[in-house]
């Protein structure tokens, strides 16, 4: 049973389009992290959201944490070929339990 469901699993769009990736769970997390991974490399942290309803912006990327801290979304405006990659969400807990729970990822291809 997967705790974090990401959708869509695959996305192929044209340069300039907007897109949204979703990360949903029935569990409450203390934090939700978004990573981006490129082939042959490890995940690279993009952002951490910790407060229900929180919105964070990173250039053309907008991240939102759901009010109940069970879901999150990543919106990319005017996608560029350089945005191509695997986007992963990971949920974290508070206290000494520091393991991250991962979604399967969304593989994004932005075509020129």
């Amino acid at each position: 049973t997967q705790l974090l469901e990401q959708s869509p699993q695959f996305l192929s769009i044209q340069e300039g389009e907007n897109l949204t990736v979703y990360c949903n769970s029935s569990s409450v997390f203390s934090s939700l992290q978004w990573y981006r991974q490129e082939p042959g490399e490890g995940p690279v942290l993009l952002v951490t959201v910790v407060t229900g309803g929180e919105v964070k912006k990173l250039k053309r990327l907008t991240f939102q944490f759901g009010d109940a801290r069970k879901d999150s979304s990543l919106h990319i405006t005017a996608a560029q070929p350089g945005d191509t990659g695997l986007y992963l969400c990971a949920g974290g807990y508070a206290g000494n339990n520091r393991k991250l729970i991962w979604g399967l990822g969304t593989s994004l291809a932005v075509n020129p």
Partner: protein
Amino acid sequence: EAGVTQFPSHSVIEKGQTVTLRCDPISGHDNLYWYRRVMGKEIKFLLHFVKESKQDESGMPNNRFLAERTGGTYSTLKVQPAELEDSGVYFCASSQAGSSYNEQFFGPGTRLTVL
């Protein structure tokens, strides 16, 4: 500042053999984590060290896996004997002590193939 490094980048072994993976965390990071991604599945937690102590090893698949972090610096993950289902990419990550939001920094991974 050097990031998390892992060695080797790839390993191909036969079923029944032994393999040892190494992880060097970011200097000064007390927390070190091992994760594994099996093809078609999500990344899964294996274990967490705080310095040289195992804080949480609830994700270790079975007793064929042995992780160590002597001296609280680099860590090794030994698989003995390896089975076909152990194939996957093994990631190591590290984080600072007291980091509020558990932000972890990942190495490039070791791709293990068991034939």
